């Protein structure tokens, strides 16, 4: 296996952008959206956004504890499966501007990130329950392209974009081996989402933006090409992470990012912990667990991202803030 390559040869296989991104090592995910206000993890694009009435989003409080914990970048949920957009988009009515709050949260966050030296990444769901035309592949792919165009052109440097929810348009291949699944994806989902074109467009707008496509818990850490990095949630059971994957005729190194929830409450879904804020959820791991996760990440040569829910008042949970601030004290 090529996994046994030494770090020296490995480095030469990475692009400068990949290398730089790997050096960040530690990041934070901010999960916020329509679900935050309805005590739910998922919804169908039908929840009324008029409940989004907070006065401020306290982005400094999101960022400073993370910086204190040694985190170098953040990943913000700009849109989840429900289709609600946290930025001022021209390509969906279901967005933050059409709420009582009425301001572009992404823009507020982007400014604060730039001011504090935090790199900004995005989480964007390909799946979108809000749109009425999700079965029209062409129109749907166009909408995605136009939304991503806004995201990559209006908010400064975007260090990564983490696509999620591809499985809506991927029926075949689920029972196959990982490599076969990549082929199944290339012969279906990649085409239906116009992923090759989307990827090239992103590279034209921001060549250094790391593109990732979440491959689900069935296929942890599988690169759904074209991508620059792989992503995994709950990789604790992965013993050997396959780093080298075939793309464009070469076996190339694709770095991985591991995302883990700080909330430990069982969401009853695929992974432990809630992504979104829930009123009664003050669950939090102790520092030792975080150190273990960092070791795990180091063992896998991975970046580690900890997910923090943002409250309906626009704040980081106090427990998360305290944990991050005291992580190294």
């Amino acid at each position: 296996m090529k996994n046994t390559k030494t770090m020296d040869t490995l480095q030469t296989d990475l692009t400068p952008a990949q290398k730089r991104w790997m050096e960040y090592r530690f990041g934070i995910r901010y999960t916020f959206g329509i679900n935050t206000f309805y005590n739910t993890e998922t919804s169908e694009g039908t929840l009324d956004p008029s409940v989004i009435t907070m006065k401020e989003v306290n982005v400094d409080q999101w960022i400073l504890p993370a910086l204190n914990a040694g985190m170098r970048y953040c990943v913000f949920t700009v849109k989840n499966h429900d289709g609600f957009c946290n930025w001022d988009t021209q390509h969906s009515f279901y967005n933050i501007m059409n709420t009582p709050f009425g301001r572009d949260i992404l823009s507020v966050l982007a400014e604060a990130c730039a001011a504090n030296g935090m790199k900004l990444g995005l989480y964007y769901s390909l799946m979108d329950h809000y749109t009425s035309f999700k079965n029209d592949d062409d129109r749907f792919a166009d909408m995605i392209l136009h939304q991503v165009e806004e995201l990559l052109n209006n908010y400064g440097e975007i260090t990564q974009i983490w696509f999620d929810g591809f499985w809506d348009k991927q029926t075949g291949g689920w029972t196959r081996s990982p490599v076969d699944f990549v082929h199944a994806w290339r012969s279906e989902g990649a085409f239906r989402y116009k992923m090759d074109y989307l990827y090239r467009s992103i590279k034209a707008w921001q060549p250094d933006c790391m593109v990732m496509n979440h491959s689900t818990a069935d296929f942890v850490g599988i690169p759904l090409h074209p991508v620059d990095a792989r992503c995994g949630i709950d990789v604790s059971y992965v013993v050997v992470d396959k780093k080298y994957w075939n793309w464009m005729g070469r076996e190339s190194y694709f770095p991985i990012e591991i995302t883990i929830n700080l909330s430990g409450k069982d969401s009853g879904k695929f992974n432990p912990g809630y992504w979104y804020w829930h009123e009664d959820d003050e669950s939090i791991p102790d520092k030792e667990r975080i150190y273990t996760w960092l070791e795990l990440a180091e063992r896998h040569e991975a970046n580690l991202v900890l997910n923090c829910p943002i409250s309906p008042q626009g704040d980081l949970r106090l427990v998360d803030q305290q944990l991050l601030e005291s992580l190294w004290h």
Partner: protein
Amino acid sequence: MNYETEQDNTQVKPDEVQKAFLDLKFGMFIHYGINTFHNTEVSDGDLPLYNFDAEAVDTNQWCMTAKNAGMKYIVMTAKSMDGFCNWPSKYTNYSVGYTSFKKDILAELINSAEKYGLKVGFSYSLWDNRIFNDTLEDEVYNTFILNQVKELLTSYGPLLELWFDGFWRRQDFGWKAPNGYAVPADHFIHAWRMEGAFRWKWDYLYAFCKSLQPDCLVFNNPTRLFRGVPLLPVDGRAAEKGEDLSENKNIWKWLGKDVFLPLQIETTLSQKGRDAYGDGNWYWHSSDNSVAKKWKIRSWRKNAEKIGANLALNVGPMSNGKLRPEDEKVLLRFQSE
């Protein structure tokens, strides 16, 4: 999420457009261009245009002959690997528009074909020696292709097919297994999806073609190594020199489903080749008078019929714009039986 289901292959049928295509059964393939005037099959995009001294291109004769031979359609080289365009493309100065002939050969063919009730398709080479070089960025080159394809699909009315050629210029891996043999068809499709399809922006190009002409069948010539293998997404499969194929796998996996992809066999009436292609020329060469015997053509047709494929016979018209007498003769005699 294990909802992959077994399908009954026999249920997958050609759609109406594919069925109409298969009903045509027999067609003519035409190679004509700058190579015709330089006694060569391939060139580097630098052959001088002043040699292109045809005074007339007798598309009426081509069509009449095809019609009389029982052919129902014609596929003509719009552009070959040399980059020479048989129409006055806005995006290159290497076209018939820059020769003394000047006229748009594709337009003339379309007019003649209409007179004789023939459908028309074009072949177009992705690989273009005229402008391609290794430092040219994929993106710039792909835009050039899109522009030319748009000209072809918006200037000549409804086309039967668009037959792409030359993909291998951007497909390095996947051709051979470690043991040196060609890989199985499915593996090659995977290799194509993992490299060529991305580099040629093929998914986008295919969708672009379908958006301009939904009923124009898109082919992508997989080379002789992989005759009949679909470089997906396509609407049909091409088999260069596939006259001896005894099998025809019509059902392939695409978008998670089994789909039907009709086969078109292309082969040459010329039986005398040069260099690498020892079994027949595609372009005209003054020294090549060889032509397939009637019985041979009959057996090709029979075989194509047996495996449910279309057969397109290639002719290389002469520099004076007319078919070789040999080709004309055998096609007309073939019909009279």
